[in-house]
């Protein structure tokens, strides 16, 4: 018997994952530019 899955639930979790990753990417960008500005 194959386990059933809830694709809608999987997808909504995926959206949360995506937002977290996007925030991380934006954070890295901001951190680098900010560090360079402060180093000026």
């Amino acid at each position, binding site marked *: 018997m*194959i*386990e*059933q*899955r809830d*694709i*809608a639930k*999987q*997808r*909504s*979790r*995926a*959206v949360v*994952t*995506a*937002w977290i*990753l*996007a925030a*991380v*990417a*934006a954070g*890295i*960008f901001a951190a*680098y*530019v900010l560090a*360079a500005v402060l*180093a*000026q």
Partner: protein
Amino acid sequence: MANEHTDTHASTHEGAHDDHHDHKPTGFLDRWLFTTNHKDIGTLYLMFSLMMFLTGGLMAMIIRAELFMPGLQLVEPDFFNQMSTMHALIMIFGAVMPAWVGFANWMIPMMIGAPDMALPRMNNWSFWILPFAVTMLLSTLFMDSGGPASGWTLYPPLSLQTGDSFAFVVFAVHMMGISSIMGAINVIATVMNMRAPGMTLLRMPMFVWTWLITAFLLIAVMPVLAGAVTMLLTDHFFGTSFFNAAGGGDPVMYQHIFWFFGHPEVYIMILPAFGIVSEIIPTFARKPLFGYAAMVYATASIAFLSFIVWAHHMFTVGMPLTGELFFMYATMLIAVPTGVKVFNWVSTMWRGAMTFETPMLFAIAFVILFTIGGLSGLMLALASVDLQYHDTYFVVAHFHYVLVPGAVFALMAGTYYWLPKWTGHMYSERWGKIHFWLSAISVNVLFFPQHYLGLAGMPRRIPDYSVQFADFNMISSIGGFVFGASQLIFVGVILHCVFKSRQAASDQVWEGARGLEWILSSPPPYHSFNEPPPINSSTVAHADEYAH
């Protein structure tokens, strides 16, 4: 990202019949411009990357033609510099990286038992940014101030001497970076959330593993590149002095930031290649991948080490002794997990029952030629000898060995491997083999002599050279022309397979193939797995627990 629409879309289709899934959009624009389907987007990525491969290749032909003999015969030095800069940018950001995203799109949902990628509309966006970015980049060649001519690394202050077209270059890099980050987010979101029940992380195919790790690298370093080029932009147009010593900045700081991106970028281009080769060799050796878990850990180790070796690109800029030693040791360490991978591939072949179809030939050539590139990389790691090797053709030979018969051969291997699955037809094995042998021989005629040139003292990025370098440059150019021409065969084989081939492919295609993608029909249904597939020893390719 509001995905409600897509959610309901997917769930209403769940449980429907197979023929129901194949309702592709009918109009051309609906099918391709507005597509949210992982296979169609994968196809777009792959076609785009093939076109960029030919465009970048054409630039390489111009470079090799000018270097055919000493003296300037064809182009002015400034145009030569534009060609070498643009060749690298197009090949890296236009050809290799999008090709991997294309493979990820096509294969990851099929390999982990998902119906599609997790974020289909973002997927569409991340592809359609690319043609615009590349058009913007290429358009600089036709501007008054010319294209970028400072090398793909865009080192200031030289890159700041580019005219107004520099703004276009920077924005193109931004757009390509955003596209890559979105592609990477999609891969992670898909792999983390969309796996079929029972498809645990350590049952995933190696290609999915290597891509998952690649995606984390992309998210970590593409913003760093974006930051670096943004600072170049403000230095050029808005009077800041991030990298201008006269204004209190530091040109070497750019190099640190750039290579903090640049070194992981190297692994972004090669890790998925490791993954593909780890799929292909077991199939044609008819034997599970040797040391699956070790392969996963080796990939992760390489990814980790890639963050702490960046300054080995900068041994000549002047660093404290401890810095040089640290980066030398860290770089040498990469040889350990890379060695594990090579040994495991050989062990996978050992006592198998091998056949040598085109994908296997490319995969074997990959292992040999990538290893040659890896060994010269070990030599380059030695900081004091690097003061001789650095910025010579020895380096050019090294990174082309890992990128062309490395990454590009893996892309070709993967194309031949999965083309029958994608199209439902077999490609021409005879022409595939002709393509392989021509490419494998000419690529060595092209790049091996460049080792000699570099050791004998020829710097890279020069349009003309002293006569002592003439013989091997001519040999290298001849190899280059044959390699370039051979790729037209590749295009021909693909077109023939897609449009003309009448030889139907079976679902499994290859006798030894195992994994979820092979239980789908050839060509697969429009939505891959709406119903979770069975996860067992015949569908999990090479997880150790199922291998006995």
